[in-house]
């Protein structure tokens, strides 16, 4: 879709537009010292102008890259616009990335300047200065702890702003002329994809890409300039960037920066967002909290909760989609709304939500249905960094939990012979930075982007995603094996935090499992099972039984699907440590790196293949301060019951697809 001509086509132009149109209305808020402090569009325009003048004086040139590292802070958002005003390209980083992970990106993009949040981030950059000699200037927002630093690279944001303020008054019109010389096709931002293999790739997105995607969302949902949005996710994630930056700048609504990571729930209740975006893990954490608090509630409340949640599961989703529901159920739901759903939505800070999205990974059906049944219009969408998150969205009034909905307006989607999804859309990225080969691989001559995801359209034209195309493999006997599918099924149990499935070219499917310390810990406490920490808890025989129950439920479920019955999980271990991005086991967006894990824990994988018993393991862990240590443990390899396939495929093959196995424990 084309952006209407005459409309501002870059973010800095949009800023000037909003400053003119709605200069007095708040653009961004941040909770500091217990109070929500607000800046209007007009105030923000001045801040950005000064900052841009300061950055220009410091030597930030058109086309150069500038690193932005930290939590959601207004000044970091202003840095994005200020850099874009000068035609420079901001590169946001995950704030929890360790110093060594940043080295590659700094070298790859030859980054000279960085604006960081605080001492923690400044320390990391100072550590990598020897490896990244081009890094010349680091400005920090929060001066705490940095007063006595004497490094020549360091300076405060305050000093940069002051310098810019003077420059701006000396050179009136400088800012406007810089903004005017930008074009929609210029690169707006570069985001590094976490990459489950190899080095991260810098995805270059233009203003046009992000604005097109934002306009499409705004039209689809009728977004207005009085929407309230909570800015709480990492700035380096495309989801956060699109929903809290690109759409914010395009539509002109308000974003609200949280006080600290621990206060999200309180902040959310205070703001009452009308438009909300959350990856499944956040929604899951919220649900876990609700469940735990309900278990501590009085008997009457528990009964009420159970009764009305059951009703909501039955009719809540139907009502939300505007379908026909019995009058008696309707009346009961209204009562439930008064007694349970309303107060619960309020406790979650979701009372005012008109539209909520979830994306980033697969969401469990129970979790998804839970929120929808409460009357919260939660929808799934499908997209990636490369597509500016512009592919498919579930339509209002027609949500099917196992699909991601039909393609958005302006998006063409095709399914290749191999099952891979390919697409074209205005949000499609320009290129991978300095990596023509990868760009050519991902985007073919006709402009089709190869997503690497496998999926198909259902009868109603909704897209259903199964797995990453290259992850889909075959067991030794040729049975289809979709690891992500198994992992997600396992992760949908509240007691399982992470799962890694193995099976490609192996005799059976097996799995490594991380328990959820909070949920299982709570479970153990209720049963009076003492434990000292994750490792201890994970090795308790009762916990192993608990997880075995989950695995067997997954198997029973798989057995019902003829295509997947063969990939039931025969054996599993509960890992002795939590998989961690710092150890390279997860990506920063918390996706498991299966290949890396298979290599690192080769001994466990072998034990899983060879049969039940025990297996000794030694693993290196990296602490938050960068030091490393070793953890040793002996793990139990546990066999799980598998089930006779009930579909027609098993019969056709003439032999049982699965075999029964008794448990050694």
């Amino acid at each position, binding site marked *: 879709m084309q952006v209407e001509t005459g409309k501002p086509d870059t973010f800095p132009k949009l800023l000037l537009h909003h400053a003119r149109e709605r200069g007095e209305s708040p653009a961004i808020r941040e909770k500091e010292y217990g109070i929500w402090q607000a800046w209007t569009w007009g105030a923000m325009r001045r801040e950005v102008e000064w900052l841009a003048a300061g950055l220009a004086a410091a030597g930030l040139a058109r086309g150069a890259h500038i690193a932005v590292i930290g939590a959601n802070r207004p000044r970091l958002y202003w840095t994005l616009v200020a850099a874009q005003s000068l035609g420079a390209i901001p590169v946001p980083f995950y704030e929890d990335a360790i110093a060594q992970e940043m080295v590659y990106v700094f070298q790859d993009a030859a980054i000279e300047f960085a604006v960081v949040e605080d001492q923690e981030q400044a320390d990391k950059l100072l550590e990598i200065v020897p490896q990244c000699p081009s890094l010349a200037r680091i400005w920090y927002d929060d001066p705490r702890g940095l007063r006595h630093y004497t490094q020549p690279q360091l300076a405060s944001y305050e000093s940069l702003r002051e310098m810019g303020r003077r420059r701006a008054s000396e050179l009136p019109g400088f800012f406007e002329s810089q903004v005017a010389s930008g074009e929609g096709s210029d690169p707006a931002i570069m985001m590094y994809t976490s990459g489950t293999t190899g080095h991260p790739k810098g995805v270059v997105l233009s203003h046009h890409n992000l604005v097109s995607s934002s306009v499409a969302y705004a039209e689809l949902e009728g977004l207005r300039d009085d929407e309230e949005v909570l800015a709480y996710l990492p700035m380096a994630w495309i989801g956060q960037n699109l929903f809290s930056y690109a759409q914010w700048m395009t539509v002109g609504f308000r974003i609200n920066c949280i006080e*600290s990571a621990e206060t999200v729930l309180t902040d959310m209740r205070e703001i009452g967002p009308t438009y909300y975006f959350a990856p499944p893990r956040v929604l899951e954490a919220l649900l876990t909290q609700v469940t735990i608090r309900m278990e501590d509630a009085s008997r009457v409340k528990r009964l009420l909760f159970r009764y009305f949640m059951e009703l909501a599961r039955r009719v809540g989703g139907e009502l939300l989609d505007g379908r026909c529901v019995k009058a008696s159920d309707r009346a009961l739901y209204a009562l439930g709304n008064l007694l349970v759903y309303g107060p619960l939505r309020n406790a979650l800070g979701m009372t005012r939500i008109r539209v909520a999205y979830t994306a980033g990974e697969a969401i469990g059906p129970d979790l998804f249905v839970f929120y929808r049944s409460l009357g919260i219009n939660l929808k799934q969408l499908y997209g990636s960094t490369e597509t500016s998150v512009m592919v498919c969205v579930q339509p209002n009034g027609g949500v099917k939990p196992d699909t991601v909905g039909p393609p958005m307006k302006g998006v063409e989607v095709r399914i290749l012979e191999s099952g891979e999804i390919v697409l074209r859309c205005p949000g499609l990225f320009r290129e991978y930075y300095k990596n023509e080969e990868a760009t050519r691989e991902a985007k073919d001559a006709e402009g089709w982007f190869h997503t690497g995801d496998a999926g198909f359209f259902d009868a109603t034209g909704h897209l259903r995603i199964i797995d990453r195309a290259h992850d889909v493999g075959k067991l030794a006997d040729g049975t289809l094996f979709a690891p992500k599918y198994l992992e997600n099924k396992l992760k949908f149990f509240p007691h399982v935090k992470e799962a890694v499935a193995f099976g490609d070219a192996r005799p059976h499917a097996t799995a490594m499992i991380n328990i959820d310390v909070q949920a299982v810990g709570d479970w153990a406490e209720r049963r009076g099972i003492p434990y000292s920490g994750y490792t201890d808890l994970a090795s308790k025989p009762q916990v192993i039984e608990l997880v075995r129950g989950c695995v067997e439920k997954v198997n029973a479920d798989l057995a019902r699907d003829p295509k997947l019955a063969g990939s039931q999980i025969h054996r599993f271990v509960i890992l002795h440590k939590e998989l961690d991005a710092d150890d390279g086991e997860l990506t920063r967006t918390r996706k498991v790196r299966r290949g890396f894990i298979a290599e690192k824990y080769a001994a466990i994988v072998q034990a899983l293949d060879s049969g039940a018993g025990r297996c000794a393991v030694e693993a290196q862990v990296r602490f938050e301060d960068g030091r490393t240590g070793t953890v040793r443990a002996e793990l139990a390899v546990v066999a799980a019951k598998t089930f006779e396939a009930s579909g027609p495929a098993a019969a056709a093959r003439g032999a049982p697809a699965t075999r029964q196995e008794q448990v050694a424990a």
Partner: protein
Amino acid sequence: MNLRELEPQRARRELGAPILALEGISLAFGGVKALAEVSFDVREHEIRAIIGPNGAGKSSLLNVINGVYRPQQGRITFRGEARAHMEPHHVAAMGIARTFQSLALFKGMTVLENILAGRNLMMRSNLFLQALRIGPALAEEIRHRRRVEEVIDFLEIQHVRKTVVGRLPYGLQKRVDLGRALAAEPKVLLLDEPMAGMNIEEKQDMSRFILDVNDEFGTTIVLIEHDMGVVMDLSDRVVVLDYGRKIADGTPAEVRSSQAVVDAYLGVKH
């Protein structure tokens, strides 16, 4: 280039003149001599540790500075004024605040209220105006509240701002206790075993906060601590007590190599 060289360099804080000096302090409870002829000084902006085995007289010494105990002999000089002993309310008004080994918090009140209580001495408007929240009392409350919020921000306890203190884990309660003391904007902060009963992570956090307080506000800090590692890392100078006597006084390195200290801690062969 060596990585070590690029690690953040701490420019030395300027240590000022002695702000607090104790001369020949002796304290006895009946026949028991708790302190005998103890003399030492604390310089402005300094982190000064008092260490010693159990029963060495560390807490007694802190209580003498604090005015809870009256020494039988000796003289205390604080900011140029010499006295034979201190009075608790004077001490607080003169800018000395302290934290307690066994926490002194209002368990039934929120974190915010507890820290606000630390500003009690600075509240000027009368009880009547405060109760009705009218006139100058309101403006004053806003001012105090702002300062309390700065303390909350500084100690990173925003997430428990409105939580009742009794429900917090021990490590956080210790932090709130420090916050209550900081709210009084003290010149000198007395910390009685700030890390007692903490795990390593909590100790690291607390150490960082102590250093930051010293760094950001220039607060002079006198602390009693059992954990030798912590003491040696944090302090500028260390006083060592044993059976109520001062047996060593100097930088951590000097104290560590003192024979008297080794004997007191490890015992002497007879």
